[in-house]
């Protein structure tokens, strides 16, 4: 299946990266998104460097998922800029956005496998639908990716409902990496898993990201997982990035938000809302 891209989008793709953008895969500036009166993302700036794994941490309802959905083009921001490889994606039409999304692979919080398709068809979905590959060509690739996440051929013909949560996550990961994307997104990859399976998924994520040489963006509030899979960590609070730095600097920084969050303290600049009146946006 061939896809066309508009001249405007093509020009943006082909433009040379400015020195300022050099090494930055995803560049976010002034991103703002509100739901009614609640401002979830407030003039947010963030750079995600090529080939690096960045984890965005933050409490529930701080807008981590909203940030991810804005980058994926699933939500339309109120204002701001998101550039991927120097191409502005806000305002792109559906067809052009589909072309951009061919660079992406995404592991959803609960895997989001297609119930009506078998495991191998789920893994091969992007290859067959977006890249126009035939079933016979896509099958061996799907098998290879399933093997990478530790699932043998006997799982290929099963349906998602027949698998455990951990297995579904592994299939979700295989689906995310099947098209060898440039950018991988992970939404709470260890949610709902026991610590051992969480560790397995983290190792697979690191292995997949390094194997593909991909750029990775993960959102999580699991600090153990965040430390394992990240090169850099960013802290989201009150709609802004309050700290961003290398993972090894996490424990030595004097940033009060990081200190309170990673130590799970009640006292500090992070205000925990207990009224239950806020929209869940985490």
């Amino acid at each position, binding site marked *: *299946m061939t896809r066309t891209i508009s001249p405007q989008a093509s020009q943006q793709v082909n433009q040379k990266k400015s020195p300022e953008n050099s090494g930055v895969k995803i560049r976010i500036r002034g991103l703002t998104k509100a739901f009614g009166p609640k401002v979830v993302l407030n003039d947010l700036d963030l750079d995600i460097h090529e080939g690096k794994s960045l984890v965005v941490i933050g409490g529930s309802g701080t807008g981590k998922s909203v940030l991810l*959905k804005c980058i*994926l*083009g*699933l939500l339309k921001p109120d204002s701001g800029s998101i550039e991927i490889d120097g191409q502005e994606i806000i305002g792109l039409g*559906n067809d052009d956005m*589909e*072309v951009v*999304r*061919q660079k*992406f*692979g*995404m592991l*959803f*919080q*609960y895997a*989001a*496998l*297609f*119930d009506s398709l078998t495991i191998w068809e789920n893994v091969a*979905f*992007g290859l067959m*639908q*977006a890249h126009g590959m035939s079933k016979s060509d896509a099958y061996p690739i799907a098998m290879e990716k399933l093997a990478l996440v530790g699932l043998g051929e006997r799982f290929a013909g099963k349906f998602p409902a027949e698998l455990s949560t951990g297995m579904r996550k592994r299939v979700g990961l295989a*689906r995310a990496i099947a098209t060898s994307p440039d950018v991988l*997104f992970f939404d709470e990859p260890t949610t709902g898993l026991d610590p051992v399976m969480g560790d397995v998924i983290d190792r697979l994520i690191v292995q997949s990201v390094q194997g593909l040489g991909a750029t990775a963006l993960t959102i999580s509030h699991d600090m153990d997982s965040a430390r394992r899979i990240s090169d850099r960590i960013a802290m989201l609070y009150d709609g802004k990035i309050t700290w961003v730095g290398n993972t090894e600097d996490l424990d030595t920084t004097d940033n009060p938000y990081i200190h309170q969050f990673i130590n799970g303290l009640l006292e500090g600049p992070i205000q925990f809302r207990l009224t239950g009146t806020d929209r869940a946006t985490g």
Partner: protein
Amino acid sequence: MPLIQPLGRLTLAFLEIIGRLSIFASAAISHCFRPPFYPRLILKQMIEVGYYSLPVVGLTAIFTGMVLALQSYTGFARFSAESAIPNVVIVSITRELGPVLAGLMVAGRVGAAMAAEIGTMRVTEQIDALYTLATNPFKYLIAPRVIAGVLTLPILVLVADTIGVFGGYLVAVHKLGFNPATYLKNTLDFMQAIDVISGLVKAAAFGFIITLMGCYHGFNSKGGAQGVGSATTNAVVSASILILTFNYLITELFFSR
């Protein structure tokens, strides 16, 4: 003033729904004619809409035809007009009862299933997953269902018409003592192409309405299991009301003088 405000709010909310539905419908229609097409998915949906609806539509049609013949006889016998029964059965079934009852049955069975399936896909992020896999859900989910509905309902209604007329024949011949050959001859003599065609046009319109409502409410469902439940109910209720409304409008179009 206290009355105007809620009235205004209601009007605005109604117009908003109409606007959203119109945008959704135009997107669905445009994707029916734009590649890529998914013939296998269309075929699968045609089997789902048509083949699996045959038992419920067939049962509805045969009992409707039987009751129609019986009730017509009890009424017409008072005026010695029993010979008009084949006429009443064929006209009622082909023009109105075949398409409307088949439409309502399919709305209950297929419209609800579509809303539940797409609604579940929405709340479990499967629709978001389609987007991230560079696949447009309108092309992959909505267009095949709409195409299948528009193509399959007329076939289903033709079957319903045949079975309904056969139901009338059974009662007329075996209970009311009609001569089989005469009954069939009268049925064929009274049958007009316009009756069947109007029924088929209605069926295609109902197929569009049912699938559109199922997809629209499923696609826009929110909030987990409760949201999917509401979407399912709304899909069936709105499709049923629209079927009855459009039935009148199409009848007016074909038969008003």
